[in-house]
């Protein structure tokens, strides 16, 4: 449908082909085009107002700054074009860059662990010898239904000294654990994120596993392949697109880490207002009313997420291309 809608306006300019049949067809097409636009209109309106407009506003705002006359601006407030000032300020503070380093470290460790974990779970649940796969599939997916804020509150009861049974038990055997310390709290957050999203990513992989035709398995078994061989040589290569997709989602999700550190900040003194890039932008926008700076930070976060996702896709695309050629 999208090709018809986009092509027709171009055709409108060109002279219609001679002959009654041609004219009838173009009239019909025009009607179809109108119908398509009418049907698309609600989507486009919502898309423009909730997606295009906010992004355009944020980009615009990231280039503005405020000047004031008087102690507070009681003699006048002006908004002026600031050039790259907000971007320079965002990158020169130090805290914002550090927060990027922190989430990148988080991503390098947490994303591979979670992807490996969800792939293994999916393969196990889709193997022939799995018992009650439906039950376990639901059970593993369930944490995703718990909102991030609630999940963090629940986990914090296992992290906070004086409340956590884990710490009490560890204390009994003489181990001093600190889940909320400066060095450990990032991994405590990683644990919450892994707990929440492993099941979700597992479902993406399972959907792909289910689309592998049965004949391929039969052929493999006829050739004498065992369960491990099938998983390694057939399932893993064929679910690769799903795993890649899950990885891209996870990379973007990592950069947008927000609710977990925000909630856990109440329990952990190590989490400051610039702990993650999103937290820094949020604080600037809604605690300090520094919309210019916050917009600049948000634009930078989006750019980094875009670059990282694109780099990952490029890398996986490159490695998978020779295989495809070989298969042909």
């Amino acid at each position: 449908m999208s090709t018809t809608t986009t092509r027709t306006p171009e055709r409108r300019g060109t002279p219609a082909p001679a002959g009654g049949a041609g004219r009838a067809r173009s009239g019909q097409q025009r009607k179809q085009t109108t119908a398509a636009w009418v049907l698309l209109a609600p989507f486009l309106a919502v898309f423009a107002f909730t997606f295009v407009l906010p992004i355009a506003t944020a980009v615009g705002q990231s280039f503005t700054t405020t000047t004031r006359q008087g102690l507070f601006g009681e003699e006048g407030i002006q908004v002026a074009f600031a050039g790259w000032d907000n971007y320079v300020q965002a990158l020169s503070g130090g805290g914002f860059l550090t927060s990027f380093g922190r989430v990148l470290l988080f991503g390098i460790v947490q994303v591979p662990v979670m992807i490996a974990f969800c792939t293994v779970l999916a393969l196990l649940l889709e193997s022939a010898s799995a018992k009650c796969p439906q039950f376990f599939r639901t059970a593993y997916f369930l944490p995703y239904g718990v909102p991030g804020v609630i999940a963090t509150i629940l986990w914090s009861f296992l992290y906070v000294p004086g409340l956590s049974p884990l710490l009490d038990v560890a204390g009994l055997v003489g181990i001093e654990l600190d889940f909320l310390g400066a060095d450990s709290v990032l991994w405590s957050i990683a644990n919450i994120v892994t707990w929440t999203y492993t099941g979700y990513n597992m479902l993406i992989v399972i959907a792909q596993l289910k689309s592998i035709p049965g004949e391929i398995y039969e052929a493999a078994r006829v050739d004498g392949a065992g369960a491990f061989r099938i998983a390694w040589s057939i399932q893993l290569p064929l679910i690769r697109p799903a795993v890649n997709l899950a990885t891209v989602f996870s990379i973007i999700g990592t950069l947008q880490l927000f609710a977990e550190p925000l909630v856990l900040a109440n329990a952990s003194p190590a989490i400051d207002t610039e702990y993650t890039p999103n937290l820094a932008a949020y604080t600037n926008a809604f605690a300090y009313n520094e919309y210019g700076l916050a917009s600049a930070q948000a634009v930078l976060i989006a750019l980094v997420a875009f670059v990282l996702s694109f780099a990952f896709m490029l890398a996986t695309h490159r490695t998978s291309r020779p295989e495809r050629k070989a298969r042909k």
Partner: protein
Amino acid sequence: MAPLTRRRLLGLGAGGALATAVAGCASPGAVSVNKAPALPAAAPGETVTLTYWSWVKDLQKVLDIWNAKQPHIQVKATWIPSGNEGGYQKLHAALAAGGGPDIAQIEMMAVPEYLLQNGLVDLSRYGADKMAHNYDKALWRQVSFNGGVYGIPQDSGPMGFFHQPGLLDRVGGRPPRTWAEWAELAAEIRRLGSRHYLDSFAVSDGSVFTGLAAQAGAVWFRTAGDEWVVDMTDDKTLNVARFFDEAVDDDLVNVSSELFSPAWYAAAAEGRIVGATCGSWGDALVQEVSGGAGKWRVAPLPVWGKEGFGSAHHGGSTAAVLANSAHPAEALAFIEWLTSTPEGIDAEIEHLGIGWSPARHYIGAKRREPSEWFGGQRYNEEVFARAVTQTNPDWTWSPLTKLTSDALANGFRKKLTSGQSFVDSVAQAQSTVVRAFRDKGLRVREGKQ
């Protein structure tokens, strides 16, 4: 890809046009409402309906008392999340859109932040100056800027020392009268066990430190003409910072759990935390320590020696009239009743459990009675009624209070992560704050230069 180009271009064009339209809008609050002529009071017999946004629950019960007696000035409450938890965001957004309620609850320290948006009505133009004698002097100072009055104090929190005398007895101690005694006592308490502490110091909340610096006599923000003077690194503040640097270095104070956090409650209930330095409103929160009934008392805040003051204000809020209100005169009449008459104050204490009364001559009937939970102590009269008369009268807040508090806390946290001293953090916070003043388009200089 080619067929998509046209649509993409259209999309970009529309986006660009919208962006231009947005950029073309005049900034709301660009012109101060206080430059316009004062709005007249409503004609006699006309009924005015006011809206009041606040985060205290059951506010409507208090408003109903007023509404029953004043048929021509009806006030309606709307609940908003507390302060920076979301309520301020709503208020700022409403002001930016040219709307908002008539009256809003705004913390004392956040009042100047709203002035950056030209969001508050100067109530001195509606006769607030004549009310000044009814209110605590230090609080009135905190709502007065540029010769105007931008909010009426609604409650406050003179600081005191909540403690468990039973635990102090175990080391033969008494509540400390000076901070030096506090440090000695803290060392004694540490002998009771590896997890026993006298008191806590919040690295993630700059508000107690700010209060104690004010108690020591510091004044971080002053104005000189059109210019702000930031002076966070004076000797008094640095002494307080140095004192707590030593306390943390010597492991005298609990830094692992914030006051009134779940971990703190657990420790306090087990008798591992002896006391809490906090504003008077802490009484309600201390009473949530399980099994604590009868075990807690309140003592005056320790002092910094001969200099400085007996106490400091910790928190506190105002009832402010917002710029887009059509009836500031009526709003002020209602606020005066709410915050300075015995009827209003008693209703606020009973239904809202509001902080310390801002009225100079009335602390509230209920607060003159002995408290059963605090072992029959009349702590309000004994401790806080006196403390409120001994606060720093020159203290004012700045338009960047939240940022200042966060900058301090972000630095203080580094004490635990990288060992950075509080003294260094205060100096860093000052330069962050000064830069932020410039980013806001304000004129500023550092005090020590």
